[in-house]
């Protein structure tokens, strides 16, 4: 393939995007047109979902509001804005080209669900409320839902961070000292073998407050995950790193802080992710069983009143919260593990 490399100026000041562009086969004509078409697909599917909602007649007796209309319009406009941005910014174009098919699929799913519930009743009430009902329930109860969300987050993070901190300490101590490991790891193994929700009934009876009890159980699961992950990380270290650090003047505590722990970071982050899923599980279980606030409690409370719309509303909020938390965790992970990334080929 012939390329014009006359201007050395271009090659001296390459950016990552420019490099990818130069090295990949040039996209022209029909290929490029198809790429832009794919980027535009979410807008098309958004419009289709809107048409489905507005034009297909409802099953007799089903009532709707315009909340869902606004919701779909807002999403479609976002997709349109993304398309415009992709036209202007090359970098964003590649991102959207990758994500667009899935976004279009989401609109199709929304339309499909709406069709099966509101329009035909294939999925029956009260177990499957249509999206419009869920959105309205969410909006009506927004103040209370927000309050529940904040309570859940407070409980989750108090437990998570105290557990993570203690786990990191225990793991580091056990990983670096054989004596500490001798005395501590039998207990770690014993406690870790028991799934954390098992503790809920016992702790609920003993603990001074339900909040403290729940924090304790959440922390327990996270502590276990972090302890094991940190020990594994530190044990896996190649001893030549210690040797090198020692000859460079590192003292024992520096070997722990500057060699063992950084080396264990990938494992620790894995432990943090694992701990988060265990914490979320325990949080919801604890709220459903004892704690009288939070999203888990809201879900089971609304269910007992057969308020399925509100129940789904809370579940949607739960999903959004957990996805957001994991997204944040992943961001931190990517940032900390920059040194592990292979050279992009």
């Amino acid at each position, binding site marked *: 393939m012939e390329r014009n490399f006359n201007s050395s100026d271009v090659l001296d000041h390459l950016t990552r995007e420019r490099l990818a562009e130069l090295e990949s086969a040039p996209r022209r004509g029909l290929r490029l047109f198809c790429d832009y078409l794919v980027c535009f697909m979410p807008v098309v599917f958004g419009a289709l979902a809107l048409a489905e909602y507005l034009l297909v007649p409802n099953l007799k007796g089903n009532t709707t509001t315009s909340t869902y209309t606004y919701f779909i319009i807002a999403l479609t406009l976002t997709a349109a804005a993304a398309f415009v941005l992709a036209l202007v910014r090359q970098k964003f174009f590649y991102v959207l080209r990758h994500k667009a098919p899935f976004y279009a699929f989401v609109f199709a799913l929304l339309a499909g669900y709406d069709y099966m519930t509101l329009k035909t009743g294939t999925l029956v009430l009260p177990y499957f409320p249509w999206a419009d009902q869920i959105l309205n329930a969410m909006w009506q109860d927004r103040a209370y839902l927000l309050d529940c969300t904040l309570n859940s987050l407070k409980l989750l993070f108090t437990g998570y961070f105290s557990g993570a901190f203690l786990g990191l300490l225990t793991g580091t101590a056990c990983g670096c000292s054989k004596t500490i490991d001798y005395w501590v790891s039998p207990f770690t193994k014993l406690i870790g073998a028991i799934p954390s929700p098992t503790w809920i009934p016992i702790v609920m009876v003993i603990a001074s407050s339900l909040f403290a009890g729940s924090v304790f159980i959440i922390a327990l699961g996270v502590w276990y995950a972090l302890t094991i992950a940190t020990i594994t990380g530190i044990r896996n270290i190649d001893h030549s790193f210690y040797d*090198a*650090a*020692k*000859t460079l003047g*590192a*003292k024992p505590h520096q070997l722990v802080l500057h*060699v063992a722990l950084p*080396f264990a970071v990938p494992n620790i982050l894995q432990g943090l992710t694992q701990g988060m899923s265990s914490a979320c599980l325990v949080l919801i279980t604890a709220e459903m069983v004892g704690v009288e606030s939070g999203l888990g409690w809201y879900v089971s409370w609304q269910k007992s009143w057969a308020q399925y719309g509100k129940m789904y509303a809370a579940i949607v909020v739960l999903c959004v919260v957990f996805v957001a938390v994991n997204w944040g965790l992943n961001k931190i992970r990517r940032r900390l593990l920059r*040194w592990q990334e292979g050279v992009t080929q």
Partner: protein
Amino acid sequence: MMPANILELNHVHKSFARTETENVTQALSDINFTVRDGEFLSIVGPSGCGKSTIMRLIAGLIFPTAGTIKLNGEVIQGTNPERGMVFQKPTLFPWLTVEQNLTFSARMMNTAKRSEYKSEVERLLEMAGLAEFRHDFPHQLSGGMAQRLALIRTMINQPKVFLLDEPLGALDAFTRMNMQDELLRLWQRSGHIVLMVTHDIDEALYLGTRVLVMAPRPGRIRADLVNDMSYPRSRTSDEFLHWRKRVLEMLDFGHNFN
């Protein structure tokens, strides 16, 4: 003038406990030698003759079973940056950038704030050809670059004794010959003690002012040769080939050489 450094090994023995049996393996037996400033000591020998063990003993990573190792009259107790060591693998910390690897030692010893330190970092990065890679991570470096970084990471402490444990063993032939010349320049400029383990006889002869030939099981010194060929040495001169033959015969190779 600075007092000359002197490294002495007196009747050093080293044994290792074996994991599977009750037996103890004798790795080194009665090692005696003295090295002074300005000497480049090459240590050659077959694998299992305890070459690396000598390096680790002098570095203070392990301790002799019997005998003493003294630097300037003081018995060596543990590691100290005044005895710098470069390993066969570069052992760069993968989570630190090139520059952070280079300054690791200073951060451990809290000497990074000294004013002359910064210019020293620059000078070494420049010298090793790593200045433009300072923000890269070790896995992005080639084998030669990684080993050069390992070398300057130790050099920045200006060690009195420079221990090189087959540092060029994993490099290709061309990079290796370049690095040998770089090592020579570094040593000639610092004038300090260099001890280098190698399994490459050419390398040992090309670099060392002295060549220690070792024999295995238990590791002991077979010969301590003063290599008085003048620098720069030619790998193809008659003198060099004569030396080569001599060392090979000592290692029980080369009987069919003629």
